[in-house]
């Protein structure tokens, strides 16, 4: 699965902030956006402004074609085929690589999907500001109650007006158990393993500046992953350069392939990737060779499903959302996608007993408690974002 560049290009906030672009831009060009940006944070949840009305209750689902905009390989084809059979419709999928490009294409009308899968809260603010989404009618989504409690009314979209949570994941360290003893993570600061020159050339970090700079912060004991403090960022930069010099890391999002192939020993990655990695193990190699250290201090996140305002089959799109929230369907989807459904009905025990996830990867699973205790990356102001990007540029420039 080509994993996404999550949480990469963020916008603005320090807490439930509303930013009027006319004040911010002051650049005098007519092409600037005209909406306003509303972004929630865990400490300041946000009820998004209502743009238009949700579809009426009790409508029959449309026939024809449901066009989905999705990440590559992010929904099990069998799950889609079952839906087609169930409703007698056709599902067509378009792929996006980055949220930014997708939002741009949605804005200019290049993409006109009926349903979007996998976007994150950082894109949500822009989708709402551009008036691209329709409020959801939950009467079509009876399985909504399957969602874990914390995500039934998430901070970025209080009351889930526009979005329904899809999968959850956490940042952590994936490794080969046949090459690295798990005790390195428990005998001291587990993050130090990423700085160990013994893994030179066989180590990777995420090609996602917010995530990887946060790694350097966590290693140094700093948990403020949304900082705008130049000194803290400067220290993180030095720390990352130290990592670079001692381990010559790969900077990509391919560890879900490279670890099972044996080309890497250790990688800082998203927890869902290690579950995806199971599908890439060469024949005859035991799943036990894959391990995952779930740090006590780390980032947790989720993505969601949403329906564009211009959806041609909005009822069908609602039905698809509900379908994905069905426990059996979500389990079937998980076996293909790897990422963990954001459902309270699918617990760690459910996943382990399903036989698709080995006991050795139990740690990679995100419980609602773990999810709640994780740090969240929230959007930054353009100036703060520029500081983060400068750190990233210094790191990646080698």
């Amino acid at each position, binding site marked *: 699965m080509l994993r996404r560049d999550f949480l990469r290009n963020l916008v603005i906030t320090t807490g439930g902030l509303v930013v009027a672009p006319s004040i911010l831009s002051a650049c005098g060009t007519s092409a600037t956006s005209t909406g*306003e940006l509303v972004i929630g944070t865990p400490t300041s949840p946000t009820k998004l402004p209502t743009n238009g009305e949700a579809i009426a209750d009790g409508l029959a689902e449309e026939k024809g074609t449901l066009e989905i905009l999705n990440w590559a390989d992010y929904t099990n084809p069998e799950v889609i085929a079952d839906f087609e059979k169930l409703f007698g419709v056709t599902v067509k999928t378009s792929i996006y690589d980055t949220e930014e490009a997708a939002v741009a294409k949605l804005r200019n009308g290049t993409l006109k999907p009926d349903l979007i899968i996998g976007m994150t809260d950082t894109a949500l603010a822009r989708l709402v500001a551009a008036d691209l989404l329709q409020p959801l009618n939950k009467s079509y989504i009876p399985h909504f109650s399957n969602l874990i409690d914390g995500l039934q009314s998430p901070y970025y979209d209080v009351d889930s007006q526009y979005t329904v949570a899809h999968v959850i994941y956490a940042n952590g360290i994936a490794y080969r158990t046949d090459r690295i003893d798990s005790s390195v993570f428990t005998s001291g600061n587990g993050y130090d393993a990423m700085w160990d020159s013994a893994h030179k050339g066989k180590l990777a970090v995420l090609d996602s500046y917010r995530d990887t700079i946060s790694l350097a912060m966590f290693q140094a004991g700093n948990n403020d992953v949304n900082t705008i403090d130049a000194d803290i960022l400067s220290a993180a930069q030095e720390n990352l350069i130290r990592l670079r010099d001692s381990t010559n890391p790969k900077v990509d999002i391919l560890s879900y392939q490279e670890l099972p192939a044996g080309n890497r020993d250790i990688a800082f990655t998203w927890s869902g990737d290690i579950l995806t990695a199971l599908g890439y193990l060469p024949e005859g190699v035991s799943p036990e060779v894959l391990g995952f250290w779930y740090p006590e201090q780390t980032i947790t996140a989720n993505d969601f499903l949403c329906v564009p305002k211009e959806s041609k089959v909005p009822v069908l799109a609602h039905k698809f959302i509900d379908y994905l929230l069905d426990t059996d369907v979500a389990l079937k989807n998980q076996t293909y996608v790897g990422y963990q459904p954001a459902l309270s009905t699918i617990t760690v025990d459910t996943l382990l007993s399903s036989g698709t996830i080995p006991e050795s990867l139990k740690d990679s699973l995100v419980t609602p408690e773990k999810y709640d205790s994780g740090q969240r990356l929230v959007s930054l102001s353009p100036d703060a974002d520029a500081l983060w990007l400068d750190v990233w*540029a210094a790191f990646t420039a080698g």
Partner: protein
Amino acid sequence: MKRSPRIWPALAAPGATWLLALFGIPFYAVACVAFGTIDPIFRDAIPQWNPLAWDFGQANEVLQSAISGPLQGVFLRTIVYVIAAMIISFAVGFPVAYFLARHAGKHKLLLLTLVIVPFWVNYLMRMLAWVNLLSPSGLFSRFMGIFGIHYNWLDGSPITVIFGLVYGYVPFLILPMYATLERLDWRLVEAARDLGATSRQAFRLVTVPMAQAGMAAAAILIALPMFGDYYTNDLLSRSPRTEMLGNQIDFYINNSQQPQRGAVLVMMLSALLLVALSWYLRSTARYAKERVK
């Protein structure tokens, strides 16, 4: 009837129009992005079409970074990689072109086709194939292991990136070199040999000077895309240790919220290439002048 002298400039019109439409206007657009602003919400580039209102803030920052900041290493590394790849490409490609032009006889075309055929396969596919071959369990790595060479080619090694560039671009050197060498007046070489020059002297003093313009063209032809290349590095390395200019442009344009910086880097790269191109133009002009003499 004598033709109007206006016909000659008129013949350049299609080319000039083409250049204006597909180079001049896009390049101006890049400049407008580089010196423009971004949308405060959507973070898209907002080109500033009026040159009088251009903002050079981002350009200054990038320039400072290139002179004494993180981008300095990227520029130097890119230049070193491209020069190294060019030298190796000549070492590999020139003898092939020379053989084809002089000694391939009636099989000339067949051999030339055989050299080129593998390169009909998509560049990305060829590089991905190398990723498999070079991985520690790959065929190439295992083959080298027979000779006691155990090297992790994919650990972010500059050697792998340089060889990747050579592999990717060497056919574009062989073709113009072949075309040049094939048209040389080899009687001059024979004359040099008759006059007592050794084969090495004849090559150095006659063949190389005659092929100089073709060599410069071939060098430019492969250097231009190499300077902007980013996918070779993406596929074979992905290490900050081998980051090239193309990778930084890719990052700023596609994955950051500072597309102006990417546009500035595009302009700086263009300026760098302009220097290389002017060297080529000067050297070919000089060569033409010497031939007239």
